């Protein structure tokens, strides 16, 4: 263990920490399970902070650079706290062919200052409903740029 590594600021009583510890224990603190544990950590904390990554590196006996290298390789991992709402615009082929490009442009414009984290997906698997956007888990099928912009720009609260 590295004595000079930054200390963790998460209180020991934190329930999430216990859950994470348990997840790591379930995988016998094996480095092979890194991606699984990153998933768990992100679910618990919303994103992967540096102290969190450092903690996992120590517990799983992995070099920190390896942990960050793996985490940043995959697009689903976040390193910043997510905003209040999240929207995914699908850019799969079918959606693209149905005008997802314009959809994304409209969404980007209205999401830039709002409370929405806007990401793009490569096919959410609902090609029959193209173009599709998913706002806070709710799919908007055959959505028009204006409607999506209204959702992202408005005081949508759900």
């Amino acid at each position: 263990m590295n004595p000079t590594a930054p200390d963790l600021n998460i209180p020991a009583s934190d329930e999430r920490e216990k859950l994470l510890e348990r997840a790591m224990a379930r995988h016998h603190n094996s480095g092979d399970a890194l991606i699984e544990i990153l998933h768990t950590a992100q679910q618990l904390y919303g994103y992967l902070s540096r102290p969190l990554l450092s903690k996992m590196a120590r517990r799983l006996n992995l070099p920190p650079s390896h942990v960050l290298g793996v985490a940043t390789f995959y697009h689903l991992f976040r390193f910043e706290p997510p905003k209040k709402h999240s929207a995914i615009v699908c850019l799969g082929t079918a959606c693209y062919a149905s005008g997802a490009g314009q959809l994304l442009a409209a969404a980007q414009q209205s999401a830039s200052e709002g409370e929405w984290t806007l990401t793009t997906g490569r096919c959410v698997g609902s090609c029959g409903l193209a173009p599709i956007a998913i706002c806070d888990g709710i799919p908007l099928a055959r959505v028009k740029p204006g409607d999506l912009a209204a959702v992202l720009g408005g005081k949508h609260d759900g």
Partner: protein
Amino acid sequence: MTADGLRQSREAELDRQSRLKNRIACCSVAGCLAGGGDAVRAALAEEVKAQGASAEIEVCGTGCMGLCSRGPLVRSSAGEITYAEVKPGDAAAVVRSDLDSLNGRILRQSDPFFAGQRRLILANSGKVDPEKIAGYIAQGGYQSLLRATSEMTPEEIVAEVKKSKLRGRGGAGYPAGLKWELVARHPSATKYVICNADEGDPGAFMNRSVLEGDPHRVLEGMAIAGRAVGAQQGYIYARGESPLAIERIRTAIDQAQREGLLGGRVFDSDFHFRIDLRIGAGAYVCGEETALIASIEGKRGQPVLRPPYPPESGLWGHPTLINNVETFANIPQIIENGGDWFAGIGAPASPGTKIFAVAGRIRNSGLVEVPIGTSLRTILFEIGGGVPEGYEFKAAQTGGPAGGCIPAQYLDVPMDYDSLTGIGTMMGSGGLIVMDTSSCMVDVARFFMEFCMDESCGKCIPCRAGTVQMNEILGRMTSGEGKEADFAMLEALSGLLVEASLCGLGRAAPNPVLSTLRHFRSEYDAHVRERRCPAGSCRMGASA
């Protein structure tokens, strides 16, 4: 579970079902759920309750029935009727089988969309609830695993799969039997079976629908494979972007383990087989088998040089059998009906059926399962209903970012592995996107190139930097800034990527460009020499 237990379980469920007056199965995979399927199902359940018919009418979920563009779909066992575009308000009419008020949204089995298909892998769709193992068992599920563990030797299983001439459904079409044999013959004591469920092609959702709709079929196929090659551990590597599929697999594994169909001493044999789920985290390249293995090992999903191939040295250096979802889903029926039966379906060189995810400018978009070798015309114009009025067919894109475009003159080409390769595209995992004359083919190539650029793992230079430059050139062309010299550079870079890339992603990345250059060269010329987009839909076309 014992053989008797399986039989009893099956009979009990069949008996229960036979006493029902009607089973109303609501499509409960991503496509229909996105269209409001959950609310429909809730409304139906409410309606049944309100009518006091809970004892005789069951409302359940089921796998993908195919016609996603007209979802949510609901299927009624009474009269074998499928209702399309069902809204919660239709609940009463559906429960009462009030056909008049559902007029125009009634699909019978004779509808060309259903009649033209041969559903083997998707056989349970509309019948089995993916969240309940009993339904799968009732349809004869796990019988093949029973056979494989109690009546067949591993060698016999491999022989049967070889006899079936099943080819891997992941895209390359490598004969599954040969792969199984390689792993089976390896003397290593530790071996693994991996199910590649990292279906990442944009526009492809076959595997996902199979996992969401009939997960046990895949588990059974994997277990049979484990028995055949001598592995005791299997992994399903699923896309992190498909939460529903992940949930369904998890449930299914739990159920199978609880029933003793997975785990130690399956059917009281000496066969032990566990399956664990591994979840990807958003990396297309992990569909490549060595990258997938790296990812399961907790590493960056970067491909490593082959050989050695996974059957020799795969997961943690042990012999590993990797097949994709659809391949494994084929296994139970091959064991059940025999390899010869399977070999008799579809094209002689590539037998069986194939699921295509048909989307884009087409009337009936969704999942279509047909015998391999069915012509594109049949799939698109008979089953798919053709392009909607006012549009004209231009090309179909197969094989995702690694594939190519099929122009109208090849509509009669049989959809099998070798024929598609012959016209410069590939079967791929089964995505089939229909484009009409308003699609700019240069922009289509650019779209796929951008995809490959974003998804390149960055390990080898040709793919990492070559995709950037190809994207740059295609971007230039679609903005009206293309140069004559760009053609030569595109070709040179394509050649480099095809020949020098480390893995399949890089080698296949130029395919959409090469294929569109081959079939739609005049469109490129118009962009570069005349500074116009004939389809009028790329960046240049839009601004003009």
